[in-house]
């Protein structure tokens, strides 16, 4: 356990070495949040009710989605696909630790760093924008489901990285690009999924992506009181499925790994 704690600390220090890079990343993050917030503010300004959302609940959704983006989506483990593609994975296979746990430790450091900065930014934005925010009825349940979502995202993302074993071109970026496009929309990070017609919502709901942002946000808003247990169970179900799938694909990938580029 101590070695992963050391990796966590080193990863934290590494992020802080490239300060300009990190600050620019945070600027991007704030602009993304502001763009989304101002869009929905404009939309709800001229329409007091959009579907089941009032202005207050919709803007709360955007704030909560902003938090979840930082908690769930913050990751540095996307670099694994480049390491596999370049053959740098060799360096790690020789070391006495689990590659999966190595990236998980680094992701935790990245999430914590991003959350700390997001905390400061969100307080500042709250003081400037002064929105009316719905407070959660079940804060612990929200935090619990958010943590599960973060772990689910890790396995999903790692699975995508593993694709580099078979297609190392562009450092594995093509599938990740597609993954990011899907995640951004189908997770509900940009748009609450229940804005769509019921038939489409049904399709969204059976996919694992909606458990990353949409459902945790519904838990915060108190709009999932009856579904709460189901949400936890299904998030757990997808987590186990993708954990097993990641392990399986990783083992298969290692068998076909030829360390191209080394």
């Amino acid at each position, binding site marked *: 356990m101590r070695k992963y704690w050391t990796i966590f600390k080193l990863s934290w220090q590494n992020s802080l070495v490239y300060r300009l890079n990190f600050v620019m990343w945070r600027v*991007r993050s704030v602009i993304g949040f502001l763009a989304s917030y101002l869009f929905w503010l404009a939309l709800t300004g*001229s329409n007091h009710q959009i579907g089941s959302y009032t202005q207050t609940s919709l803007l709360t959704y955007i704030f909560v989605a902003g938090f979840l983006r930082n908690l769930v989506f913050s990751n540095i483990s996307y670099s694994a696909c480049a390491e596999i593609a370049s053959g740098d994975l060799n360096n790690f296979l020789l070391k006495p630790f689990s590659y999966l746990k190595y990236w998980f430790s680094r992701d935790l450091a990245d999430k914590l760093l991003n959350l700390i900065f997001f905390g400061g930014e969100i307080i500042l934005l709250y003081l400037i924008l002064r929105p009316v925010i719905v407070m959660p009825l079940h804060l612990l349940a929200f935090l619990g489901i958010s943590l599960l979502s973060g772990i689910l995202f890790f396995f999903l993302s790692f699975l995508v990285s593993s694709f580099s074993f078979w297609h190392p071109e562009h450092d594995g970026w093509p599938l990740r690009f597609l993954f990011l*496009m899907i995640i951004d929309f189908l997770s509900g990070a940009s748009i609450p999924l229940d*804005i769509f017609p019921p038939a489409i919502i049904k399709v969204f709901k059976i996919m694992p992506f909606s458990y990353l942002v949409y459902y945790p946000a519904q838990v915060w808003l108190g709009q999932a009181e009856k579904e709460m247990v189901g949400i936890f169970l299904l998030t757990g179900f997808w987590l186990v499925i993708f954990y097993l799938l990641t392990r399986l694909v990783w083992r298969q990938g290692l068998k076909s790994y030829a360390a191209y580029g080394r």
Partner: protein
Amino acid sequence: MNLKRYIVYWLKNNSLTLQSLLADRLSSILFIFGKLLRFSFYLGFLFALKLKIKLVTGYNIDQLVVFFLIYNLFDLVGQLFYRGVYWYRADILSGAFDFTLLKPINPLFQVLTSHTDFLDLPQLIIVLACLVIFLPGVSAAEALVFVILSFVSMLLLTAVHIFVAAIGVITTEVDHTIWIFRGLSGMAQVPVDVYSRAVRDFLTFVVPVGIIFTFPAKSLFGLLSVPIITLALFFAFTFYLLSLKFWQYALKKYSSASS
């Protein structure tokens, strides 16, 4: 300036780019699929919105669709021709930019056009087809204004990419700068009029995504007056000249580090 030399350079460079894209078809398909998904998701969202609301700050959803399509049109054209800016950071870091400076071709031209993103072409074709379907009847005068404002948009897009390239030379930071611009330009997927006055002014005169994306779409609905069009032209030329000045300044700061 020897125009023929530039055309030959551009054609040669981009035929090589096209060959590399064709050589790795799976990657190209994944990229194209991702781009089309993003486009269709947002378009689907606008149609879903049509079932819930009628107007957004005076615009109906069909008009918002046209604004979204025009946004995509210029965003894609900008990326299609100036994708090179996304790629040249490594040259600055390694000092390989020295070789760009030594060639008998304007270095700015090389940086901007070194890579044409042919993967944007399928989406561009779809956007144009959608525009034909969704565009209301446009008068000859409105079409003429649209052409003028398209020129303004291209001039401003060129200037923005020059600014990003210049910042890259000075700070070695390119990726985040261009993505910050992309983040801000994403706000112009809807007309910038929907935002508050302060945000609207910022998006029009500081980071001019309002002029680049919203103005051409507004011209199609006959919503722009002659003084506004003149102002847009004046602003675009000034912005472009400033970007060139800034590029010259940045070149003087280039230290050829790591070379």
